[in-house]
């Protein structure tokens, strides 16, 4: 039976981690399902486990003039009740799983699980979020898109722990978030779309577009966004076919038990079209 540690501080967690190469256990809502065994047996953990979900240092949210910093072990419920958390992230989080899971599941767990269907990821990409990784006395900061490598894989080293997520403040006045699942509640995403824009008079001064669950990792193109940025809304309307065809080349969905390639691609482009035509106006 594997050893389980319940450290009393972040420092202690980091120490145990550098010693043991253990599995970090935050809310456990992914781990307990992935490692489930039938018949009431203890879930199948093959390496020592460190419980971190209770650590106060990882549950803090701090807000400054430049950015908001969210502790990796903040639960979804905690994010929903904090006033500094960006609205678009709250909209996304309120559609994750169900209340019982939102009381336990953490933002850090969602990021580190790195599932293509991880709902916070596209929103965090769109908001230019970064993550802070800590190990024995050292820290590194990475943009979220550099942290996620592929489906289920990240650049996290065995002795590293995700401590905080940094979201720089930005201002947008147009928001469109849409999660498409099999039913309204408690369903994993088939597709999710995140669109943000800052429109002043007729000009779109900033724009962010991200797709979740339709490629191995989140689809966001800073190049295409740059082509839209600064343009007049009428000019953008004329560019729509071209924009759709650019994204169509980037969206590369799979068919699985939740949906199929054609549906995912069609709906993704329809959502984008709807953002550009309706929500951005």
């Amino acid at each position, binding site marked *: 039976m*594997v050893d389980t540690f319940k450290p009393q501080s972040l420092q202690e967690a980091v120490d145990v981690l550098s010693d043991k190469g253990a599995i970090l256990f935050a809310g456990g809502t992914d781990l*307990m399902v992935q490692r489930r065994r039938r018949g*009431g047996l*203890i*879930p199948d953990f093959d390496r020592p486990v460190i419980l971190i*979900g209770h650590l106060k240092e990882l549950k803090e949210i701090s807000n400054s003039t430049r950015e908001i910093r969210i502790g990796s072990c903040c639960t979804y419920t905690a994010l929903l009740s904090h006033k500094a958390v960006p609205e678009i992230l709250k909209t996304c989080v309120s559609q994750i799983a*169900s209340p*019982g899971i939102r*009381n336990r599941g953490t933002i850090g767990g969602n990021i580190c699980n790195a599932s293509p269907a991880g709902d916070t990821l596209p929103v965090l990409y769109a908001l230019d979020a970064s993550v802070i990784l800590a190990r024995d006395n050292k820290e590194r900061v990475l943009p979220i898109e550099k942290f996620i490598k592929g489906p289920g894989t990240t650049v996290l080293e065995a002795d590293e722990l995700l401590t905080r997520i940094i979201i720089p403040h930005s201002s947008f006045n147009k928001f469109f978030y849409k999660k498409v699942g099999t039913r309204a*509640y408690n369903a994993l995403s088939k597709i999710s779309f995140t669109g943000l824009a800052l429109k002043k008079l007729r000009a779109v001064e900033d724009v962010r577009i991200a797709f979740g669950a339709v490629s191995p990792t989140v689809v966001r193109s800073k190049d295409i966004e740059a082509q839209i940025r600064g343009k007049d809304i009428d000019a953008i309307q004329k560019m729509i076919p071209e924009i759709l065809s650019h994204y169509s080349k980037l969206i590369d969905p799979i068919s699985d038990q939740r949906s199929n390639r054609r549906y995912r691609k069609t709906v993704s482009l329809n959502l984008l079209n709807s953002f550009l035509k309706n929500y951005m106006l």
Partner: protein
Amino acid sequence: MEINFILNGKGVKVKTHPLRRLLDVLREDFDLSGVKEGCGEGECGACAVLVDGELALSCITPVGSVEGTSVVTIEGYRETAKYRALEEAFSATGAVQCGFCTPGFIIAAESLLSKTPRPTPNEIREAISGNLCRCTGYSGIVEGIKRASERGEGLW
């Protein structure tokens, strides 16, 4: 490992592996069989309990993580006036057929009403969105929670 917590109002101690599911500890070590296992993976809510007043799914909660907390199962909740209001309402609105899902719905209802004593139908649906029922079609349950919230005036 020895794990201490409060279970239905009484301090308890269990010597067990901290990664054992709270569900199994409650059912096997404490004979609390009102906590049901439906899916075993967080999807159905049959195993719901309250941990420090918050809704939690005992099938994906390791017992080590409830150390020092207060856990309430349907057996503990049964002793309250709030439970009786929900029981009366659920039977009046036909919210129970086979009953397998009922403890989980009652716990989810308590978790809602403790924060929102007069919920709208949408808030009720949202609050029970992690609970599955194969029998009733949900309307009776939504009505039952609404009725309890109205008739149980002052309880929550």
